[in-house]
């Protein structure tokens, strides 16, 4: 579904990605692990079309996304779940949910969203920035599911959440996966990553230094945790 080929990116003079290549098929969850500054968020931003100053190819369903602005990429099926959860002070929860256009073949209905997230229903008339951190994260995920996005770009969706909420994020991602949704997941929480992902890419200094199947991670967990510096 998604193919990234020899992607390099710069912030001004500083190169943050150095020829990253990876592929994700429909229904696959792939994580990007690595220390802060390894280039994980930049990679997501490049795929979304939010980063100026990149070279290399990004293809969705075999079609190049080069030169496409972010809103076109969203309409092509990319679901953006940013690390700051992307809430608005001037939009209510209900408005935040219905802001993006429906782009995919199997979008969640508003009823489905509210059934899965009763908290969002209870707070639907409140400005979305007034939700708790966990609720904001659920809102960000619910929003891209309601779009019917086919590939979710999730930047640390479990960061700062309680174990209970982390488990819920896992449930949502696995459920999406069952419906054929692909996920590119930036994740520092290795343990969580192994509960949802099929494959993992370890990023360091803008390069993919290692690619592992989920089964390989458990065997080398200590090793990897040390590498991630956690």
């Amino acid at each position, binding site marked *: 579904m998604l193919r990234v080929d020899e992607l390099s990116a710069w912030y001004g003079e500083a190169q943050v990605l150095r020829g990253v290549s990876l592929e994700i098929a429909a229904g696959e969850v792939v994580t990007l692990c690595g220390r802060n500054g390894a280039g994980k968020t930049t990679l997501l931003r490049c795929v979304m079309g939010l980063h100026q100053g990149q070279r290399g190819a990004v293809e969705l369903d075999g079609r190049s996304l080069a030169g496409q602005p972010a*809103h076109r990429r969203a309409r092509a099926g990319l679901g953006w779940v940013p690390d700051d959860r992307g809430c608005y*002070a001037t*939009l209510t929860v209900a408005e935040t949910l219905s802001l*993006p*256009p429906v782009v995919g073949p199997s979008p969640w209905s508003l009823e489905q969203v509210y059934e899965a997230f009763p908290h969002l229903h209870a707070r639907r008339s409140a400005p979305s920035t007034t939700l708790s951190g966990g609720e904001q994260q659920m809102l960000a995920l619910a929003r891209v599911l309601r779009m019917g996005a086919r590939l979710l770009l999730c930047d640390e969706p479990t960061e700062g959440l309680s174990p209970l909420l982390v488990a819920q994020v896992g449930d949502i991602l696995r459920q999406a996966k069952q419906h054929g949704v692909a996920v590119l997941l930036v994740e520092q929480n290795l343990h969580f990553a192994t509960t949802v992902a099929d494959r993992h890419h370890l990023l360091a200094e803008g390069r993919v230094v290692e690619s592992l199947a989920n089964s390989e991670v458990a065997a080398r967990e200590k090793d990897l945790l040390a590498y991630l510096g956690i």
Partner: protein
Amino acid sequence: MVNFLQHTFNGLVGGAFLALLALGLAVIFGMLRVVNFAHGAIYMLGAFGAYVLLTEAGLSFWWALIVLPLALALFGMALERLLVARLARLDPLYNFLLTFGLTLILQDAVKSRYGVQSSPYDAPAILSGTLDLGAFDFPAYRVFVLVIAIAVCVGVWWLLSRTRVGMVVRAATERPELSTALGIDVGRWVTPVFGFGIGLAGLAGVLAAPIRAVNPLMGADLIIVVFAVVVIGGLGSIFGSVAAGFAIGLVQAWVQALGEDWALLSQVLVFLVMAGVLLWRPAGLFGREEAPA
């Protein structure tokens, strides 16, 4: 008491102009982060346009009220496409300078054709009398101005808060990058929003023609006050700019009512209020601190 009511009424009418102009500025600033210095010149073009339409084409006030805001909105959209958009990626100061230069050009163009003296413009006959609303006789035209201004402000509030278009504009205004990543074509809304803000200034100008001195500098005198109003309300806050517009109009009228000795104070009052508000709330009464980029 009757006197107080009268001053209050006049303050609301004065505030109506400030509110319409501040509303346009706030809408434009919110969407484009452009401080449109030419807003006063557009207001002047609205008033002068009404005068020119009447004297040179024989078109009545009612025609002017419909045609000029639309024509100026189109002018604004062309201006945004041809000039403002080119500078959008640079320091905001460049667009400030652009609109400042444009102001000088527009003012001097009108000045060279019509001179600096004020041109007379009468309210339409049907609104030339007074309305007896109990307490005292209200000049009908001023009541009309107040009703139109309130209707426009309520209409804009409704559009922004209750419609899908308004929701998209709010989202695009608050977080442009996030909104594009969610599939909103933010760029598509920039030109119409700019044109809309300019159209509001034009409308205020047409409404001003029968009760304000119509001359090339009428906008230059007013725009500085309007900037202060926008800052008091909170940069980019739609509600704040309208509320501050009416509030400043009221306070100015009340201070003027105290007599000649207070005339000077009524002129600088708005700036004193602005300084006070900024000390107390640096983002303005209804403004939010800018989120870090």
